[in-house]
């Protein structure tokens, strides 16, 4: 688990360093960073025992609306 997370983080970090090094626009770096953090959060959630399940939330919302 830790190795897998480190692998993903390492890969995304290399990308970030490359983007900063090649002077990409700030907006692109920010989008890359946000998406990378979301990806890491989703993987952390998987290893932490599935606290976040989008389908369950969507299902709950549809049931709450009475549809």
């Amino acid at each position: 688990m830790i190795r897998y997370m480190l692998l993903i983080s390492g890969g995304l970090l290399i990308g970030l360093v490359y983007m900063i090094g090649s002077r990409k626009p700030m907006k692109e770096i920010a989008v890359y960073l946000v998406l990378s953090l979301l990806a890491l959060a989703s993987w952390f959630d998987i290893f932490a025992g599935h606290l976040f399940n989008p389908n369950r939330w969507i299902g709950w919302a549809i049931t709450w609306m009475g549809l």
Partner: protein
Amino acid sequence: MSGTLKEHISGWQFFLITVNYSLGTAFFIRPASIIATTKQDGWMIPLLAGAFTLAAVWIWMGMSKVYPNLSIVQLAVEVAGRPVGGLIALLYIWYFIQTSSWVTRNLGDFMKTILMPNTPITVFHIMFLGIACYAAIKGIETIARTSEILTPLVIFVMVTIYLCAMKEWDWSKLEPMFQTSFAKLVKDSGPVIGFPYLETVSIMMLAPHVKSRLRTSLLLGMTLATLLLSGIVLVTVGVLGAPRSGHLLYPLYTIVKELQIAEFIENLESTIVIGWTVWIFLKLCIAYYCAVIGICQLFKLKNRAGAAIPLIFLIAGIAITLNDNVIGNIVWDKRYIFQYSCFYGMVLPLLLWMLGKFKKRRRKGPAA
């Protein structure tokens, strides 16, 4: 590589994209659930769902005519303003990401359950997403050309194999026919309308790239997808019978696995696996591209790679999180997919269409 670069695809290419997107995963996954609920009359469900989809296509075309050069994401921001339109655009981006995750998970489930049970599911996900990411960075012209080359081949393989399977056809397996009431048929067609028909709203992201015959290509693509889906349900019932097909996860795979031609050509399942992976790949590329281009258009990014690369890991993560197993996916699909897809495929496009028309009329007002 620019996110805002103008790319063009022909009407024929858009037609193939429509067929691939509608059938990519549904061709293998849908027959089992259709037959499980509607038995021998299952072949009527895609026809009913296809007819309902005409209403959706009418809304999509109306929406795309308001601002023909804008995609859904751009249209949302244009007609609803930055805060509300931005939220609608974000919802659509989420929908594209979620669709990509569903497609990826369908592939992973199939590979893990049927072909390589000892390989971790994420391996399939990451490998496919890596290629889809590359295709998304290269752009829609590349995806459309790939689709142009691969689709005829896949359809030829599928049709040939299923024609060979017709020797097992038994008319008695289709009996009793026409036993389902119209009300039950309408109720059972709900999940099929949600997936794959309303899900196809995603390809409206590509509408500004289509040079000509957008409406014709979309309608013909949907019609062909409907006929192929209805035909494959009929073949499955005629060959395997409704009770057996309804209990299998992938009845088409079983048909091909049991197929034997001229007593020495057998084990043809690898051919169908290749065909299906090609179809899934094309659908995944399109959904992935829609997600990437949506992000680029919303945040006005010039380079697609910055958005495309982290999406590999995000989609792979969501694909695992979506459902615990195949059964969870089936249960969710049966209960919620229609309502969920209606929101993105009918409600939001109708809202954007109305807002766009209202805004255009208001602009014209003072001049007149």
